[in-house]
């Protein structure tokens, strides 16, 4: 049986693992926090703004992870060209995450899939719940409204050759209130490729709900406290006890 996946998402600013707590940046975290043996997959995202750091620092992060973690590694943040794909793959990434460029130029998904295979192309979708109850897709770190409906865009990404969809609720991000499982379910039920859900995890039960209510194939956590020391193992034991088939 294919296991349900638990994925750690790490964000980097100019090569430094970066989190905010109560909106105050905190740079104390080191990679030693990550229990690289229990996690199923690692996502590293570069959130360095243009002109505010060197891309090389992120490449160093990617190659450090690739050398030391023997699990799949997905990398993204600011990926705009086939050359960006090649560079990240050369530094040891297995999958590449794209977002804003796919929205600007949807044919980018197909170009990448044709060259590297669909399994290499993860389309990240950031969605916000509108007052109407519909979900709209936002680009540029959630700053720019696109006018696109989330289900329409997820279907288009799949049709263009995406291998997986990484879905983030902007509203829930960092709130610890749990995933937006209505959003997760409508996207997951509309497409046939795996859906990785993200945004809002505060407790282990939220992972369970992501699978059961959100119909996700993988649950992601960006909360730094969720991958210290034995946390991943505890989370997986909790999932297993709740009837979710995971790799323990």
């Amino acid at each position, binding site marked *: 049986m*294919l*296991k349900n*996946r638990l994925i750690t998402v790490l964000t980097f600013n100019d090569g430094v693992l970066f989190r905010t707590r109560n909106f105050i940046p905190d740079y104390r975290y080191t990679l030693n926090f990550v229990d690289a043996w229990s996690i199923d997959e690692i996502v590293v995202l570069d959130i360095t703004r243009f002109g505010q750091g060197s891309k090389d620092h992120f490449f160093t992060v990617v190659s450090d992870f690739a050398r030391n973690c023997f699990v*799949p*590694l997905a990398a993204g943040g600011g990926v705009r060209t086939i050359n960006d794909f090649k560079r990240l793959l050369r530094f040891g990434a297995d999958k590449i995450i794209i977002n804003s460029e796919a929205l600007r130029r949807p044919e980018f998904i197909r170009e990448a899939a044709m060259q590297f*295979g669909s399994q290499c192309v993860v389309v990240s979708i950031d969605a916000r719940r509108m007052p109407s109850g519909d979900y709209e897709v936002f680009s540029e770190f959630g700053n720019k409204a696109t006018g696109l409906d989330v289900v329409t865009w997820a279907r288009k990404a799949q049709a263009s050759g995406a291998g997986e969809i990484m879905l983030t609720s902007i509203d829930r991000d960092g709130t610890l209130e749990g995933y937006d499982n209505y959003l997760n379910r409508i996207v997951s039920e509309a497409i046939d490729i795996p859906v990785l859900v993200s945004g809002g995890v505060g407790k282990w039960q939220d992972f369970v709900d992501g699978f059961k209510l959100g119909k996700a194939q*993988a649950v992601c956590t960006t909360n730094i406290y969720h991958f210290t020391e034995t946390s991943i193992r505890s989370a997986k034991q909790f999932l297993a006890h709740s009837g979710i088939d995971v790799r323990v």
Partner: protein
Amino acid sequence: MKVAIVDYGLGNLRSVSGAVSKLGYLPFETHDKEEILSADKLILPGVGAFGDGMKNLHSLGLIECLNQSVLEKKTPILGICLGSQLMAKISYEFGKHEGLGWINASVKKLNSGTNLRIPHVGWNGIVLIKEDPLFTGILSNELFYFVHSFHVCCEEKQAIVAECEYGIQFTAAFHKDNIFGTQFHPEKSQSIGLKLLNNFLSLC
């Protein structure tokens, strides 16, 4: 021991060489014919499309050199994911492509006929069909990391070493003479994957 990782422009070379280094070997990534011919062990990695893989091997002039190493010198070779698929006679990924033809097999789409999602991504258990040096100390139901939409269908059933179930039973690992292939990624399968790689490097 010289461990050559064949670099044909597709795939996760860094992760494969990282895993091999972790095991205490000094791998080198190469598309140099002399280096490939003089290697003691070969690894053919690969992520991507079958057609591109064969095209790159052709344009680097590596087909003849690989045939010589593998079929004449009998250098042990491990194909990983696309690398294992390239060892088949033919693939039906985006058309019809001729492979290296070392294994009497074809590469077909995972057509599970159910509502299972394709690509097959994640950790899945394998079932050992027979004993094999590659799986020394590894039991049935151990989990390996898979990420693929196509799989190898072996005509020579005796070559099948392990299977995996995802809608259908498909070949997860095969072995014929000095030729080994895994559909899963040992270099991405944590300690059990490292064990398999170590078996290939020390026992095969």
